[in-house]
């Protein structure tokens, strides 16, 4: 039996996951948590083989950070990151943390069970691409990696000067990137751009 820990702050999602696990022959529920930070502690105390980890959990606790901590302490535990946020950096961060699989929990193509099976048989399952989001007139993939970094800082509410310092570029370069994004998206100011990026979940501030 594979012991599964479910970390998700939505009652309904947890219920769906629990049902999938309880209905199966080979999985058993080890526990459910709402807070990501509690997950590594749970793994210290109980036998866990597989973690299904949400990214944006209760009290804004970061599932990716918790996953990285679990992987560091217990490399044997397999982790599936499950999120509904199309945030551009999540897949990369999940890979960096050493998580086996990544799953966008969109209803419709819901087949968590098969991802769990494939993960447990040693496969690593990641979506082929980041979901494409439309920011104004632009598609999210049209933004360059550098522009995405600037946008991320912008969504943290930082001013150009601070962004420049943190990304080791001049204030004018920051402005240049922002102007480029604005012209791609067809927006007139950076606030519109930032709010749209956050609302569309291209960027989740603080994650």
């Amino acid at each position, binding site marked *: 039996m594979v012991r599964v820990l479910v970390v998700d702050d*939505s*009652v*309904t*999602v*947890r*219920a*769906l996951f*629990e*049902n999938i696990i*309880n209905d199966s022959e080979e999985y058993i529920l080890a*526990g*459910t*948590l*709402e*807070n990501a*930070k*509690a997950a*590594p*502690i*749970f793994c*210290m*105390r109980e036998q866990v083989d597989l973690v299904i980890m949400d990214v*944006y959990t*209760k*009290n804004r606790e970061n599932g990716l950070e918790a996953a990285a901590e679990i992987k560091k302490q217990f490399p044997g535990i397999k982790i599936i990151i499950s999120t*509904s946020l199309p945030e551009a950096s999540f897949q990369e961060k999940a890979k960096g943390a050493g998580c086996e699989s990544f799953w966008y929990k969109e*209803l419709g193509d819901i087949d968590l069970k098969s991802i769990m099976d494939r993960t447990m048989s040693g496969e690593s399952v990641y979506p082929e691409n980041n979901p494409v989001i439309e920011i104004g007139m632009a598609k999210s993939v049209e933004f360059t990696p550098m522009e995405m970094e600037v946008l991320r800082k912008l*969504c*943290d*509410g*930082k*001013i150009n000067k601070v962004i420049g310092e943190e990304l080791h570029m001049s204030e004018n370069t920051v402005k240049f990137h922002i102007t480029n994004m604005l012209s791609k998206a067809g927006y007139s100011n950076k*606030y519109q751009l*930032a*709010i749209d990026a*956050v*609302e569309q*979940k291209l960027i*989740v*501030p*603080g994650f």
Partner: protein
Amino acid sequence: MTIIAFSLILTYMSMIAVDLLVAVRIYRTRFGINAIVDICIHIILMVEAVLYKAALSTGRVLSVETANENGIMFGIKTLGILIPLIAFLYGVSELIFEYYLRIRTINAASISRAFEQLDCGILFTEADGSRVLTNRAMKQISVALFGINRTFQKNFWEQLENYKSENVQKVEFAGEMAFILENGTIYSIHRTLLEDKKRQYYEITAQDITKIYLRSLELKNKIEALGALEGRLAKTLENVADIQQERELLSYKYHIHDELGNAILRGRRLSKQNSISPVERAEYTENWKRIYKLFRSSSNQGFATGTDFYMDIVKTAAAIGCNLLIAGERPRNSEVLALTIREAVYNAVKHSHANVVMVNGKIEGDRYRIEISDNGSDKPTDIVEGGGLTNMRKAIENAGGSLTIDITDGVHLSVILPKNEEY
């Protein structure tokens, strides 16, 4: 005739004397080539007069008529060559003079005059503070600051440093002290130590920064306004994320509704059929089972949050095998306290292997004192603050409270939070 000659000689000699006086006076301030040229002209004229006297006395000139003929002709011939030559020399000397005036002719007097006219105030003092040199602007500033009687005392600089007055406001600008005078002018005062070969001087300068100062105030206000705006943006962005989360939840609720609708429709269809196959029956049963489970799990854990704001943490603690006991007085809905208790529970279980965490609060005047301790078996000897603990401290201090960590016997947190405030 001799009288005329002598009077001419005397006149020219006195002219040369005047020239010399003028030259000496001018020489103090500028290079007097033109004065020397004047002297030369007069010497030539005097020599001419001497020659005329000599001509008279030797008898080569006998009468006024012949004197006019010979003497004046002699004068005209001599001057005819000399005057153009002198005019030429004079012109050249003027050019050279102009050139030297610009480049070389800086002397004490010219410095003093330029210094006096400077817009910025300058004061040179000895190392002990006694005054060496100052200018008009500095005098005016000193009078405006200290009044006419107490201006430029030996401890001028110390007086400036400790300056207090009702009429003049002392401010700091770009790391220097500055004074806003009654007439609205703002001076920034700066002192530098100058070292000569033998002695030390202080140079104290006063720079009019009225415009810069006012502009910088304006800029500062604008930056502050911008900062507030950025802060609001950050907050809005966070809210946007939360709203989006709600939307997702709603979509899952729709999913349950779909499942329910699906089951009802299937039921209706089956009820109209004459016979029901075992497969259909199994599917239909499965359908309802799923719905039952969804509802059961929802109602078990409750869509609504617990009655107590901190019940969620008790649940989280229980999930990681920790019994969280909350007692006594505490803020009713404090995000800050919730964060604190949560972090304390994580740390107690993780690092001290505790299975009980106790939170006890009481009111002390206008604030809460909340003590958090645990029964952990591993008692740490030192704590490195970082991550969760830093966030905790920041949140508490932002709310106007304080956090003390005592590790003499297990970890003991003491949290002070102000009363009657929402945080």
